[in-house]
């Protein structure tokens, strides 16, 4: 992962049908989670990711999910069933997964307010690890 490099952004459709992309959140710290519905660790991580999103939204941290290669209906159904409130991008061409060199799922990328990569983390995270992952980016002004 290229820590310090500009974070690559692709504009994609979200589960709610609107267009969205990482670069739309410039000015906020972003925790981007690359995942898929069939992935057991992603499934296990999702409740903590949702809790983290709710807890940190007011602190200026945006969580976005990027579903890899799946249909809108599959990802939407999953999001509804699990009460996911953060935006989920539908990356059917797996462009984010490729560009961020994800070696497995889930992969978490932290992007600072200026749109640069802070770090990339492979594998399932606990809410404590998510808090720690964004701490330095939140401190930076």
């Amino acid at each position, binding site marked *: 992962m*290229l820590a310090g490099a500009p974070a*690559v952004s*692709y504009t994609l459709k979200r589960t709610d049908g609107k267009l969205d992309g990482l670069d739309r959140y410039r000015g906020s710290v972003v925790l981007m989670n*690359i995942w*898929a*519905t*069939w*992935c057991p660790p992603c499934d296990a991580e999702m409740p903590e990711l949702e809790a983290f999103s709710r807890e940190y939204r007011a602190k200026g941290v945006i969580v976005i999910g990027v579903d*890899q*290669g*799946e*249909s809108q*209906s*599959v990802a939407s159904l999953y999001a509804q069933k699990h009460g996911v409130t953060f935006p989920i991008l539908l990356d*059917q*061409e*797996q*462009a984010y*997964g*490729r*560009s961020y*060199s*994800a*070696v*497995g*799922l889930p992969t978490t990328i932290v992007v600072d307010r200026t749109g640069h990569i802070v770090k990339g983390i492979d594998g399932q995270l606990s809410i404590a690890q998510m808090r720690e992952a964004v701490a330095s980016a939140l401190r930076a002004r």
Partner: protein
Amino acid sequence: MNARWFALIVAIVAIALVVAQDIVPTTALFHAWQYALALALAAFVMVAYALSAQRGEDGPIGKRLAIAHVGALVVLGAGLASGLLGPDTDTIVRTPGTVAPLPDLGRAAFFSAADGAAVARGDAHVLLRKRGEGDIDIAPGAKRYLANSVIYTQPTHAAFIDAYDTSGNHVTVTQPEGSAFLSPILLFRSEATIAGKKLPFDTFRTPGAKRVIRAIYFSAKDTANMNHVAEADRNAPTVLFAVDDDAGKTLGIAIGASGKIVNVGGLHLRANIGTYPALVVASAPAPIALIAGLLIFLAALLWSAFAIPPKPALREAHG
């Protein structure tokens, strides 16, 4: 043969070798010590002649030819420098949208993102980036020189895969053994032997549908002989899919033409078949030194021709 002609022939042969190094830089000969030794010996011959000519040992023509040899030595110097200081030949194959560091050049290569249409067209680019400097765009067919290196792209077989389950839902494609885990683009880095013939081969998975797929690339020439491919598709490359379940049981085999969906083993698969660039970095003579040296050599050679005294006219014999 006198010294003048010997030195001149040595210079011409050595220049031809360095020019060939620029045209086909990846040839192994140009990276061998024997090549460097041959250029060094040629340089020795030329320097020896030029010094004696400067002393006037070959008359006014020799003095002018000495300048031509200086030009040839510039060309040889460029060839030697690239052979000794330039990078080893490297062909870098990466998945679209990824980055490869190029430490010898102090840059990073950005392999442009490509969708199925871009793979089918085969027009993707590679960008070389360095902080604080502009991008260098390596388009298909273009050659760029950086220090003692030449950089260009080479098309490699590629197929962009779209996979759907039996309900028609798009499913994730992964390549645990490939160059990028989350890539739906096959680059066929391996080979499979079928009927004694080696063919480009790759594998991918669809974990959501619990399938493992082997893919074999058939060129247009190979496809032309396949009777079970529709006649309209026989003039273009195809991909053979062999689908297994995750327990290793083979569920089906099918051949897909570019852009067309095939139904096999509980999957609907579509391959957009084409090419994606691999980046080739090789050492090559610096073009400025090469051109300058050649111009000096040719100009001085022409100038020496004017110093050749005219043959005396034949006098009529008077009896």
